[in-house]
Protein backbone atom coordinates (compact mmCIF):
# COMPACT_ATOMS: atom_id res chain seq x y z
CA UNK A 1 0.00 0.00 0.00
CA UNK A 2 1.25 3.41 -0.92
CA UNK A 3 0.11 5.69 1.89
CA UNK A 4 0.27 9.46 2.33
CA UNK A 5 -0.38 11.42 5.52
CA UNK A 6 -0.97 15.14 5.15
CA UNK A 7 0.05 17.01 8.26
CA UNK A 8 0.01 20.57 9.54
CA UNK A 9 2.30 22.20 12.06
CA UNK A 10 0.26 23.98 14.73
CA UNK A 11 0.82 25.66 18.12
CA UNK A 12 0.86 23.08 20.95
CA UNK A 13 -2.49 22.40 22.63
CA UNK A 14 -1.44 24.01 25.92
CA UNK A 15 -0.54 27.32 24.18
CA UNK A 16 -2.05 30.56 25.41
CA UNK A 17 -3.56 32.23 22.36
CA UNK A 18 -3.69 36.04 22.15
CA UNK A 19 -4.53 38.27 19.20
CA UNK A 20 -1.60 40.05 17.56
CA UNK A 21 -1.36 43.83 17.84
CA UNK A 22 -2.92 44.41 14.42
CA UNK A 23 -5.74 42.02 15.38
CA UNK A 24 -5.45 40.02 12.16
CA UNK A 25 -3.48 37.06 13.43
CA UNK A 26 -2.47 35.57 16.74
CA UNK A 27 0.59 36.69 18.64
CA UNK A 28 3.12 34.01 17.80
CA UNK A 29 5.90 35.05 20.19
CA UNK A 30 7.12 32.20 22.33
CA UNK A 31 4.74 29.59 20.91
CA UNK A 32 6.00 26.05 20.58
CA UNK A 33 4.79 24.00 17.63
CA UNK A 34 3.74 20.39 17.20
CA UNK A 35 2.26 18.12 14.56
CA UNK A 36 -1.52 18.68 14.65
CA UNK A 37 -2.77 15.91 17.03
CA UNK A 38 -5.45 14.69 14.59
CA UNK A 39 -2.83 14.41 11.83
CA UNK A 40 -0.71 12.22 14.10
CA UNK A 41 -3.53 9.67 14.05
CA UNK A 42 -3.20 9.60 10.27
CA UNK A 43 0.55 9.01 10.39
CA UNK A 44 0.12 6.29 13.02
CA UNK A 45 -2.66 4.56 11.04
CA UNK A 46 -0.43 4.59 7.97
CA UNK A 47 2.42 3.01 9.91
CA UNK A 48 0.08 0.38 11.38
CA UNK A 49 -1.27 -0.59 7.95
CA UNK A 50 2.25 -0.86 6.56
CA UNK A 51 3.29 -3.07 9.49
CA UNK A 52 0.22 -5.29 9.23
CA UNK A 53 0.60 -5.86 5.51
CA UNK A 54 4.37 -6.23 5.76
CA UNK A 55 5.02 -3.87 2.90
CA UNK A 56 4.25 -0.40 1.68
CA UNK A 57 5.41 3.11 2.23
CA UNK A 58 4.24 6.10 4.28
CA UNK A 59 4.88 9.61 2.96
CA UNK A 60 4.31 12.62 5.21
CA UNK A 61 3.32 15.78 3.34
CA UNK A 62 3.04 19.34 4.59
CA UNK A 63 2.87 22.93 3.43
CA UNK A 64 4.58 25.87 5.10
CA UNK A 65 7.76 27.76 5.86
CA UNK A 66 11.14 26.42 6.86
CA UNK A 67 10.00 25.54 10.37
CA UNK A 68 7.57 22.93 9.01
CA UNK A 69 10.59 20.70 8.27
CA UNK A 70 10.69 20.01 12.05
CA UNK A 71 7.15 18.60 11.99
CA UNK A 72 7.97 16.44 8.96
CA UNK A 73 11.17 15.27 10.68
CA UNK A 74 9.00 14.15 13.64
CA UNK A 75 6.86 12.08 11.22
CA UNK A 76 10.03 10.49 9.81
CA UNK A 77 11.30 9.79 13.32
CA UNK A 78 8.19 7.77 14.24
CA UNK A 79 8.59 5.68 11.09
CA UNK A 80 7.40 7.48 7.94
CA UNK A 81 9.58 6.58 4.96
CA UNK A 82 9.85 9.96 3.31
CA UNK A 83 8.57 13.49 3.50
CA UNK A 84 7.44 16.13 1.04
CA UNK A 85 7.69 19.75 2.10
CA UNK A 86 5.82 22.23 -0.09
CA UNK A 87 7.36 25.61 0.50
CA UNK A 88 6.61 28.79 -1.40
CA UNK A 89 6.29 32.41 -0.26
CA UNK A 90 3.20 32.84 -2.45
CA UNK A 91 1.23 30.44 -0.21
CA UNK A 92 1.05 33.01 2.61
CA UNK A 93 -2.62 34.06 2.99
CA UNK A 94 -4.02 31.40 0.63
CA UNK A 95 -7.50 30.08 1.44
CA UNK A 96 -8.63 26.49 1.91
CA UNK A 97 -9.47 25.97 -1.76
CA UNK A 98 -5.94 27.01 -2.77
CA UNK A 99 -4.28 24.84 -0.10
CA UNK A 100 -6.39 21.90 -1.28
CA UNK A 101 -5.37 22.49 -4.90
CA UNK A 102 -1.70 22.55 -3.96
CA UNK A 103 -1.99 19.36 -1.89
CA UNK A 104 -3.98 17.62 -4.62
CA UNK A 105 -1.25 18.50 -7.15
CA UNK A 106 1.43 17.06 -4.85
CA UNK A 107 -0.64 13.93 -4.12
CA UNK A 108 -1.22 13.30 -7.83
CA UNK A 109 2.52 12.91 -8.35
CA UNK A 110 2.33 9.44 -6.83
CA UNK A 111 -0.37 6.77 -6.92
CA UNK A 112 -1.44 6.68 -3.32
CA UNK A 113 -3.93 4.01 -2.25
CA UNK A 114 -4.76 5.71 1.02
CA UNK A 115 -4.46 9.38 1.99
CA UNK A 116 -4.88 10.48 5.58
CA UNK A 117 -5.71 13.89 7.01
CA UNK A 118 -6.66 14.93 10.53
CA UNK A 119 -10.37 15.61 10.98
CA UNK A 120 -9.37 19.24 11.51
CA UNK A 121 -6.31 21.30 12.40
CA UNK A 122 -6.49 22.56 15.96
CA UNK A 123 -5.47 26.07 14.90
CA UNK A 124 -8.09 27.19 12.37
CA UNK A 125 -10.52 24.34 13.23
CA UNK A 126 -11.88 24.42 9.70
CA UNK A 127 -11.95 20.70 8.93
CA UNK A 128 -12.43 21.33 5.23
CA UNK A 129 -9.11 20.57 3.52
CA UNK A 130 -9.27 16.76 3.43
CA UNK A 131 -12.79 16.90 1.99
CA UNK A 132 -11.81 19.59 -0.54
CA UNK A 133 -8.83 17.48 -1.68
CA UNK A 134 -11.04 14.39 -2.06
CA UNK A 135 -13.43 16.34 -4.23
CA UNK A 136 -10.64 17.82 -6.37
CA UNK A 137 -9.05 14.41 -6.89
CA UNK A 138 -12.37 12.70 -7.54
CA UNK A 139 -11.76 10.31 -4.66
CA UNK A 140 -14.28 9.03 -2.13
CA UNK A 141 -13.68 9.95 1.50
CA UNK A 142 -14.84 9.30 5.02
CA UNK A 143 -14.48 12.20 7.46
CA UNK A 144 -13.75 11.66 11.15
CA UNK A 145 -12.97 7.95 11.26
CA UNK A 146 -12.29 6.18 14.55
CA UNK A 147 -11.80 2.68 13.12
CA UNK A 148 -10.41 1.46 9.80
CA UNK A 149 -10.08 -1.96 8.28
CA UNK A 150 -8.25 -2.38 4.99
CA UNK A 151 -9.08 -5.28 2.68
CA UNK A 152 -6.07 -5.01 0.34
CA UNK A 153 -6.98 -7.87 -2.04
CA UNK A 154 -10.32 -6.28 -2.85
CA UNK A 155 -9.00 -2.72 -2.92
CA UNK A 156 -11.57 -1.61 -0.40
CA UNK A 157 -11.88 -0.60 3.22
CA UNK A 158 -14.47 -0.42 5.97
CA UNK A 159 -14.39 2.70 8.14
CA UNK A 160 -16.36 3.71 11.21
CA UNK A 161 -17.30 7.30 11.79
CA UNK A 162 -19.02 8.77 14.78
CA UNK A 163 -22.17 10.78 14.32
CA UNK A 164 -24.56 12.11 16.96
CA UNK A 165 -25.53 9.13 19.11
CA UNK A 166 -24.46 6.51 16.58
CA UNK A 167 -21.63 5.08 14.51
CA UNK A 168 -21.80 4.87 10.73
CA UNK A 169 -20.08 1.85 9.20
CA UNK A 170 -18.99 2.80 5.70
CA UNK A 171 -17.69 0.63 2.92
CA UNK A 172 -15.42 2.48 0.55
CA UNK A 173 -13.33 1.60 -2.47
CA UNK A 174 -9.62 2.47 -2.63
CA UNK A 175 -7.95 4.79 -3.42
CA UNK A 176 -9.66 6.92 -0.80
CA UNK A 177 -9.17 9.74 1.65
CA UNK A 178 -9.80 9.44 5.37
CA UNK A 179 -9.80 12.21 7.95
CA UNK A 180 -8.90 10.91 11.39
CA UNK A 181 -10.70 11.36 14.70
CA UNK A 182 -9.34 10.67 18.16
CA UNK A 183 -9.87 7.05 19.18
CA UNK A 184 -8.52 5.65 15.90
CA UNK A 185 -5.21 4.64 17.49
CA UNK A 186 -2.56 5.70 19.99
CA UNK A 187 0.25 7.48 18.14
CA UNK A 188 3.69 6.16 19.04
CA UNK A 189 6.54 8.29 20.27
CA UNK A 190 9.79 8.63 18.39
CA UNK A 191 12.58 6.39 19.67
CA UNK A 192 16.18 7.60 19.83
CA UNK A 193 17.23 5.31 16.94
CA UNK A 194 14.15 6.55 15.08
CA UNK A 195 15.27 10.14 15.52
CA UNK A 196 18.77 9.25 14.31
CA UNK A 197 17.42 7.39 11.28
CA UNK A 198 15.08 10.25 10.38
CA UNK A 199 18.09 12.39 9.50
CA UNK A 200 18.95 10.00 6.66
CA UNK A 201 15.46 9.74 5.24
CA UNK A 202 14.53 11.66 2.09
CA UNK A 203 12.76 15.01 2.46
CA UNK A 204 11.79 16.54 -0.87
CA UNK A 205 11.16 20.27 -1.02
CA UNK A 206 8.69 21.32 -3.72
CA UNK A 207 7.79 24.82 -4.88
CA UNK A 208 4.60 25.82 -6.65
CA UNK A 209 6.38 25.71 -9.99
CA UNK A 210 7.45 22.10 -9.26
CA UNK A 211 3.72 21.40 -8.96
CA UNK A 212 2.92 23.39 -12.10
CA UNK A 213 0.74 25.80 -10.19
CA UNK A 214 1.10 29.49 -10.92
CA UNK A 215 1.65 31.58 -7.81
CA UNK A 216 -1.01 34.12 -8.72
CA UNK A 217 -3.68 31.41 -8.99
CA UNK A 218 -3.34 30.46 -5.32
CA UNK A 219 -2.03 33.56 -3.54
CA UNK A 220 -3.95 35.70 -1.08
CA UNK A 221 -5.51 37.81 -3.86
CA UNK A 222 -7.47 34.73 -4.99
CA UNK A 223 -8.72 33.88 -1.51
CA UNK A 224 -12.53 33.72 -1.28
CA UNK A 225 -12.38 34.87 2.32
CA UNK A 226 -10.04 37.09 4.33
CA UNK A 227 -9.59 37.14 8.08
CA UNK A 228 -10.42 40.65 9.22
CA UNK A 229 -10.29 40.22 12.97
CA UNK A 230 -8.91 37.81 15.55
CA UNK A 231 -10.21 38.36 19.05
CA UNK A 232 -10.06 36.73 22.43
CA UNK A 233 -13.37 35.20 23.41
CA UNK A 234 -15.41 37.26 25.87
CA UNK A 235 -13.57 36.89 29.16
CA UNK A 236 -15.38 35.03 31.90
CA UNK A 237 -14.85 36.17 35.40
CA UNK A 238 -15.08 34.12 38.53
CA UNK A 239 -18.57 34.17 39.97
CA UNK A 240 -19.46 33.30 43.50
CA UNK A 241 -18.39 30.46 45.74
CA UNK A 242 -21.39 29.10 47.56
CA UNK A 243 -20.58 28.49 51.21
CA UNK A 244 -22.33 26.43 53.83
CA UNK A 245 -22.99 22.77 54.54
CA UNK A 246 -23.49 20.48 51.52
CA UNK A 247 -27.28 20.64 51.79
CA UNK A 248 -27.27 24.42 52.28
CA UNK A 249 -24.94 24.87 49.33
CA UNK A 250 -27.11 22.68 47.10
CA UNK A 251 -30.28 24.54 48.10
CA UNK A 252 -28.62 27.87 47.35
CA UNK A 253 -27.28 26.61 44.01
CA UNK A 254 -30.77 25.48 42.97
CA UNK A 255 -32.15 28.89 43.97
CA UNK A 256 -29.50 30.76 41.95
CA UNK A 257 -29.99 28.55 38.89
CA UNK A 258 -33.74 29.13 39.01
CA UNK A 259 -34.00 32.76 40.03
CA UNK A 260 -30.79 34.41 38.83
CA UNK A 261 -29.64 32.29 35.88
CA UNK A 262 -33.15 31.10 35.02
CA UNK A 263 -31.81 27.94 33.45
CA UNK A 264 -33.87 25.45 35.46
Amino acid at each position, binding site marked *: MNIAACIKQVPATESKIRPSTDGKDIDRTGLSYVVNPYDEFGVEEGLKIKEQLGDGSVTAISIGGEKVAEALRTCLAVGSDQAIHIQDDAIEGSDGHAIARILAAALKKSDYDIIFFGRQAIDDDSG*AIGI*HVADLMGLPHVAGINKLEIIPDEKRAVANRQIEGATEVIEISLPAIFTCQKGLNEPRYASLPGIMKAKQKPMTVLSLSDLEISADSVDSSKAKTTVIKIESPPARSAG*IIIEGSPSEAVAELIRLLREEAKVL
Partner: protein
Amino acid sequence: MFNILVFCEQRDGKIKRVALEALGAALSLTSDGDQVTAVLIGENIASQKETLVSGGADKIILVEALTLNTYSSEAYGRIVSDIAKKENASLILMSATAMGKDLGPKVSARLEGPFAGDCIKLTLDDEGKMTATRPIYGGKATSTVLSHQASFQVATLRPNVFSVHDQAATQDPQVENYSEIPDLSNLKAIIKEVVSTAGSKIELTEANIIVSGGRGVKGPEHFDIIEALAEALGGAVGASRAAVDAGWKPHSYQVGLTGKTVSPSLYIACGISGAIQHQAGMSSSKYIVAINKDPNAPIFKIANYGIVADLFEIVPLLTEAVKKMKNE
Protein backbone atom coordinates in the same frame (compact mmCIF):
# COMPACT_ATOMS: atom_id res chain seq x y z
CA MET B 1 -32.62 39.87 -3.71
CA PHE B 2 -30.86 37.05 -1.96
CA ASN B 3 -31.84 33.44 -1.94
CA ILE B 4 -30.58 31.65 1.13
CA LEU B 5 -30.60 27.89 0.86
CA VAL B 6 -30.87 25.96 4.11
CA PHE B 7 -30.02 22.28 4.16
CA CYS B 8 -32.34 20.84 6.81
CA GLU B 9 -30.99 17.73 8.46
CA GLN B 10 -33.45 15.01 9.42
CA ARG B 11 -32.99 11.77 11.26
CA ASP B 12 -35.54 8.96 10.87
CA GLY B 13 -37.82 11.32 8.97
CA LYS B 14 -37.83 13.94 11.70
CA ILE B 15 -36.32 17.41 11.26
CA LYS B 16 -33.56 18.06 13.78
CA ARG B 17 -33.81 21.07 16.04
CA VAL B 18 -30.47 22.32 14.74
CA ALA B 19 -31.98 22.49 11.24
CA LEU B 20 -34.60 24.88 12.60
CA GLU B 21 -31.79 26.94 14.13
CA ALA B 22 -30.25 27.21 10.65
CA LEU B 23 -33.61 28.26 9.23
CA GLY B 24 -33.96 30.83 12.00
CA ALA B 25 -30.49 32.18 11.21
CA ALA B 26 -31.39 32.43 7.52
CA LEU B 27 -34.61 34.25 8.29
CA SER B 28 -32.78 36.79 10.47
CA LEU B 29 -30.46 37.60 7.54
CA THR B 30 -33.23 38.38 5.09
CA SER B 31 -35.29 41.45 4.40
CA ASP B 32 -38.22 42.07 2.06
CA GLY B 33 -37.80 40.39 -1.28
CA ASP B 34 -35.25 37.86 -0.07
CA GLN B 35 -36.08 34.20 0.05
CA VAL B 36 -35.33 31.34 2.43
CA THR B 37 -35.40 28.00 0.66
CA ALA B 38 -35.34 24.83 2.76
CA VAL B 39 -33.87 21.69 1.23
CA LEU B 40 -34.92 18.40 2.78
CA ILE B 41 -33.38 15.13 1.60
CA GLY B 42 -34.48 11.63 2.62
CA GLU B 43 -37.24 9.10 2.47
CA ASN B 44 -40.85 9.68 3.62
CA ILE B 45 -40.19 13.28 4.52
CA ALA B 46 -43.15 15.12 3.00
CA SER B 47 -44.95 15.09 6.37
CA GLN B 48 -42.25 17.39 7.75
CA LYS B 49 -43.32 20.31 5.56
CA GLU B 50 -45.28 22.02 8.35
CA THR B 51 -42.24 22.09 10.61
CA LEU B 52 -40.25 23.85 7.91
CA VAL B 53 -43.02 26.38 7.30
CA SER B 54 -43.27 27.38 10.94
CA GLY B 55 -39.45 27.42 11.00
CA GLY B 56 -39.52 30.24 8.45
CA ALA B 57 -39.09 28.66 5.01
CA ASP B 58 -40.57 30.57 2.05
CA LYS B 59 -39.96 27.69 -0.29
CA ILE B 60 -39.39 24.00 0.33
CA ILE B 61 -37.54 21.63 -1.97
CA LEU B 62 -38.18 17.97 -1.15
CA VAL B 63 -35.65 15.45 -2.43
CA GLU B 64 -37.19 12.06 -1.83
CA ALA B 65 -35.62 8.73 -2.70
CA LEU B 66 -35.12 5.45 -0.91
CA THR B 67 -31.39 5.50 -1.63
CA LEU B 68 -31.11 8.86 0.14
CA ASN B 69 -32.29 7.52 3.46
CA THR B 70 -28.74 7.42 4.80
CA TYR B 71 -26.15 10.12 4.27
CA SER B 72 -23.70 10.00 1.41
CA SER B 73 -21.21 12.83 0.96
CA GLU B 74 -21.09 12.27 -2.77
CA ALA B 75 -24.87 12.04 -3.32
CA TYR B 76 -25.95 14.78 -0.90
CA GLY B 77 -23.04 16.97 -2.07
CA ARG B 78 -24.12 16.68 -5.68
CA ILE B 79 -27.78 17.29 -4.97
CA VAL B 80 -27.26 20.31 -2.72
CA SER B 81 -24.77 21.95 -5.06
CA ASP B 82 -27.00 21.29 -8.08
CA ILE B 83 -29.93 22.90 -6.26
CA ALA B 84 -27.73 25.82 -5.18
CA LYS B 85 -26.82 26.47 -8.81
CA LYS B 86 -30.39 26.15 -10.00
CA GLU B 87 -31.65 28.47 -7.27
CA ASN B 88 -28.71 30.83 -7.73
CA ALA B 89 -28.15 30.76 -3.96
CA SER B 90 -26.24 33.59 -2.32
CA LEU B 91 -25.64 31.57 0.79
CA ILE B 92 -26.01 27.92 1.76
CA LEU B 93 -26.50 27.26 5.45
CA MET B 94 -26.53 24.09 7.51
CA SER B 95 -25.81 23.06 11.05
CA ALA B 96 -22.25 22.06 12.01
CA THR B 97 -23.25 18.51 12.95
CA ALA B 98 -21.33 15.41 11.86
CA MET B 99 -23.33 15.59 8.63
CA GLY B 100 -22.99 19.35 8.13
CA LYS B 101 -19.27 19.30 8.86
CA ASP B 102 -18.92 16.88 5.97
CA LEU B 103 -21.52 18.30 3.60
CA GLY B 104 -20.50 21.97 3.99
CA PRO B 105 -16.91 21.51 2.77
CA LYS B 106 -18.13 19.08 0.08
CA VAL B 107 -20.65 21.58 -1.33
CA SER B 108 -18.12 24.40 -1.02
CA ALA B 109 -15.55 22.36 -2.96
CA ARG B 110 -18.04 21.67 -5.75
CA LEU B 111 -19.17 25.29 -5.98
CA GLU B 112 -15.69 26.73 -5.28
CA GLY B 113 -17.33 29.30 -3.04
CA PRO B 114 -16.29 31.01 0.18
CA PHE B 115 -16.51 28.70 3.20
CA ALA B 116 -16.85 29.41 6.93
CA GLY B 117 -17.28 26.49 9.32
CA ASP B 118 -18.90 26.34 12.76
CA CYS B 119 -20.03 29.97 12.76
CA ILE B 120 -21.36 31.67 15.88
CA LYS B 121 -22.27 34.94 14.19
CA LEU B 122 -23.23 35.72 10.64
CA THR B 123 -24.22 38.87 8.77
CA LEU B 124 -24.73 39.80 5.12
CA ASP B 125 -23.80 43.18 3.69
CA ASP B 126 -25.88 45.03 1.08
CA GLU B 127 -24.26 43.11 -1.75
CA GLY B 128 -24.91 39.80 -0.01
CA LYS B 129 -21.35 39.08 1.07
CA MET B 130 -21.12 37.36 4.43
CA THR B 131 -19.10 38.29 7.46
CA ALA B 132 -18.77 35.25 9.68
CA THR B 133 -17.37 34.88 13.17
CA ARG B 134 -16.13 31.47 14.21
CA PRO B 135 -14.17 30.04 17.11
CA ILE B 136 -10.60 28.98 16.35
CA TYR B 137 -7.92 27.29 18.45
CA GLY B 138 -10.66 25.20 20.03
CA GLY B 139 -12.41 28.30 21.34
CA LYS B 140 -9.33 30.12 22.65
CA ALA B 141 -9.97 32.87 20.08
CA THR B 142 -12.53 33.89 17.49
CA SER B 143 -11.85 34.73 13.88
CA THR B 144 -14.04 37.01 11.80
CA VAL B 145 -13.82 36.40 8.08
CA LEU B 146 -15.12 38.46 5.22
CA SER B 147 -16.28 36.80 2.04
CA HIS B 148 -15.35 38.33 -1.31
CA GLN B 149 -18.09 36.71 -3.32
CA ALA B 150 -21.86 37.15 -2.97
CA SER B 151 -22.81 33.81 -4.51
CA PHE B 152 -22.43 30.19 -3.39
CA GLN B 153 -21.13 31.07 0.04
CA VAL B 154 -21.28 28.12 2.42
CA ALA B 155 -21.48 28.44 6.19
CA THR B 156 -22.05 25.77 8.83
CA LEU B 157 -23.55 26.96 12.09
CA ARG B 158 -22.61 25.88 15.58
CA PRO B 159 -25.54 24.13 17.29
CA ASN B 160 -27.24 25.89 20.22
CA VAL B 161 -26.20 29.38 19.12
CA PHE B 162 -28.85 30.60 16.65
CA SER B 163 -32.50 31.03 17.62
CA VAL B 164 -35.37 29.05 16.21
CA HIS B 165 -38.15 31.03 14.53
CA ASP B 166 -41.49 29.87 15.81
CA GLN B 167 -44.25 32.03 14.46
CA ALA B 168 -47.14 30.83 12.40
CA ALA B 169 -46.49 31.22 8.69
CA THR B 170 -48.27 34.11 7.03
CA GLN B 171 -48.39 32.52 3.63
CA ASP B 172 -48.25 29.05 2.18
CA PRO B 173 -44.78 28.23 0.99
CA GLN B 174 -44.06 26.97 -2.43
CA VAL B 175 -43.29 23.23 -2.32
CA GLU B 176 -41.24 21.63 -5.04
CA ASN B 177 -40.51 17.93 -5.46
CA TYR B 178 -37.01 17.73 -6.82
CA SER B 179 -36.88 15.18 -9.57
CA GLU B 180 -33.37 15.51 -10.98
CA ILE B 181 -31.88 12.97 -8.63
CA PRO B 182 -28.52 11.89 -10.06
CA ASP B 183 -27.66 8.26 -10.76
CA LEU B 184 -26.54 6.91 -7.41
CA SER B 185 -25.72 3.36 -8.44
CA ASN B 186 -21.98 3.90 -8.57
CA LEU B 187 -21.27 5.53 -5.23
CA LYS B 188 -17.76 4.69 -4.04
CA ALA B 189 -18.59 5.07 -0.35
CA ILE B 190 -21.76 3.59 1.09
CA ILE B 191 -23.08 3.39 4.63
CA LYS B 192 -23.59 -0.29 5.39
CA GLU B 193 -24.87 0.10 8.90
CA VAL B 194 -25.71 2.73 11.50
CA VAL B 195 -25.09 1.41 15.00
CA SER B 196 -26.62 3.37 17.86
CA THR B 197 -24.18 4.02 20.64
CA ALA B 198 -25.28 3.11 24.12
CA GLY B 199 -25.66 5.75 26.76
CA SER B 200 -27.04 9.22 26.83
CA LYS B 201 -29.64 9.84 24.15
CA ILE B 202 -29.00 13.57 23.97
CA GLU B 203 -26.09 14.60 21.80
CA LEU B 204 -23.50 16.60 23.72
CA THR B 205 -23.12 19.37 21.15
CA GLU B 206 -26.88 19.84 20.94
CA ALA B 207 -27.65 19.53 24.65
CA ASN B 208 -29.06 22.43 26.61
CA ILE B 209 -27.67 21.12 29.88
CA ILE B 210 -24.45 19.13 30.31
CA VAL B 211 -23.09 17.43 33.42
CA SER B 212 -19.42 16.51 33.02
CA GLY B 213 -17.14 14.38 35.15
CA GLY B 214 -13.37 14.52 35.39
CA ARG B 215 -10.51 12.95 37.28
CA GLY B 216 -12.33 13.64 40.56
CA VAL B 217 -14.93 11.01 39.67
CA LYS B 218 -12.18 8.48 40.45
CA GLY B 219 -13.33 5.63 38.23
CA PRO B 220 -15.83 4.46 35.62
CA GLU B 221 -18.01 2.81 38.29
CA HIS B 222 -18.70 6.22 39.86
CA PHE B 223 -19.94 7.88 36.67
CA ASP B 224 -23.45 6.71 37.54
CA ILE B 225 -23.84 9.64 39.94
CA ILE B 226 -22.95 12.03 37.11
CA GLU B 227 -25.40 10.24 34.83
CA ALA B 228 -28.15 10.38 37.47
CA LEU B 229 -27.82 14.16 37.73
CA ALA B 230 -27.80 14.55 33.94
CA GLU B 231 -30.91 12.41 33.70
CA ALA B 232 -32.72 14.36 36.40
CA LEU B 233 -31.91 17.58 34.53
CA GLY B 234 -32.78 16.15 31.11
CA GLY B 235 -29.23 16.82 29.98
CA ALA B 236 -26.27 15.02 28.45
CA VAL B 237 -23.17 13.55 30.10
CA GLY B 238 -19.71 14.83 29.24
CA ALA B 239 -16.21 13.99 30.41
CA SER B 240 -12.85 15.66 30.67
CA ARG B 241 -9.85 14.42 28.74
CA ALA B 242 -8.43 12.93 31.95
CA ALA B 243 -11.54 10.74 32.36
CA VAL B 244 -11.48 9.71 28.68
CA ASP B 245 -7.75 8.98 28.60
CA ALA B 246 -8.20 6.84 31.74
CA GLY B 247 -10.73 4.80 29.76
CA TRP B 248 -13.70 5.68 31.99
CA LYS B 249 -15.75 7.08 29.10
CA PRO B 250 -15.40 6.77 25.32
CA HIS B 251 -14.01 9.67 23.33
CA SER B 252 -17.48 10.67 22.13
CA TYR B 253 -18.02 12.09 25.64
CA GLN B 254 -14.92 14.28 25.67
CA VAL B 255 -15.36 18.03 26.00
CA GLY B 256 -12.35 20.16 25.14
CA LEU B 257 -9.67 20.85 22.59
CA THR B 258 -9.35 17.32 21.19
CA GLY B 259 -12.99 16.54 21.91
CA LYS B 260 -16.21 18.44 21.45
CA THR B 261 -16.89 22.13 21.81
CA VAL B 262 -20.18 22.76 23.52
CA SER B 263 -22.30 25.81 24.30
CA PRO B 264 -25.18 24.68 26.55
CA SER B 265 -27.21 26.99 28.77
CA LEU B 266 -25.86 25.17 31.80
CA TYR B 267 -22.60 23.27 32.18
CA ILE B 268 -21.94 21.50 35.47
CA ALA B 269 -18.29 20.48 35.89
CA CYS B 270 -17.83 17.81 38.56
CA GLY B 271 -14.33 16.97 39.68
CA ILE B 272 -12.81 18.77 36.71
CA SER B 273 -9.84 21.03 37.41
CA GLY B 274 -10.41 23.05 34.23
CA ALA B 275 -7.19 22.87 32.23
CA ILE B 276 -6.96 25.36 29.37
CA GLN B 277 -7.77 22.57 26.88
CA HIS B 278 -11.01 21.77 28.71
CA GLN B 279 -11.98 25.42 29.08
CA ALA B 280 -11.56 25.88 25.33
CA GLY B 281 -14.36 23.37 24.78
CA MET B 282 -16.90 24.72 27.25
CA SER B 283 -16.20 28.35 28.12
CA SER B 284 -18.91 29.57 25.76
CA SER B 285 -21.54 27.87 27.95
CA LYS B 286 -24.06 30.38 29.24
CA TYR B 287 -23.77 29.35 32.88
CA ILE B 288 -21.02 27.25 34.42
CA VAL B 289 -21.24 25.47 37.76
CA ALA B 290 -18.09 23.96 39.25
CA ILE B 291 -18.01 21.35 41.98
CA ASN B 292 -14.48 20.55 43.09
CA LYS B 293 -12.61 19.78 46.32
CA ASP B 294 -9.65 21.95 45.36
CA PRO B 295 -10.40 25.64 45.95
CA ASN B 296 -7.49 26.55 43.64
CA ALA B 297 -8.82 24.60 40.65
CA PRO B 298 -8.76 26.89 37.57
CA ILE B 299 -12.37 25.96 36.78
CA PHE B 300 -13.53 28.27 39.62
CA LYS B 301 -12.04 31.23 37.74
CA ILE B 302 -14.62 30.84 34.96
CA ALA B 303 -17.56 29.37 36.88
CA ASN B 304 -20.62 31.49 37.69
CA TYR B 305 -21.32 29.34 40.73
CA GLY B 306 -18.81 27.23 42.58
CA ILE B 307 -19.05 24.77 45.42
CA VAL B 308 -15.78 23.78 47.06
CA ALA B 309 -16.62 20.30 48.31
CA ASP B 310 -16.47 16.61 47.56
CA LEU B 311 -18.53 15.86 44.46
CA PHE B 312 -19.58 12.54 46.02
CA GLU B 313 -21.41 14.52 48.68
CA ILE B 314 -22.79 17.32 46.52
CA VAL B 315 -23.86 15.61 43.28
CA PRO B 316 -26.31 13.08 44.82
CA LEU B 317 -27.87 15.87 46.93
CA LEU B 318 -28.19 18.02 43.83
CA THR B 319 -29.83 15.16 41.93
CA GLU B 320 -32.38 14.74 44.72
CA ALA B 321 -33.04 18.48 44.85
CA VAL B 322 -33.59 18.64 41.08
CA LYS B 323 -35.96 15.66 41.18
CA LYS B 324 -37.88 17.26 44.02
CA MET B 325 -38.07 20.55 42.13
CA LYS B 326 -39.34 18.83 38.99
CA ASN B 327 -42.04 17.03 40.98
CA GLU B 328 -43.37 20.23 42.46
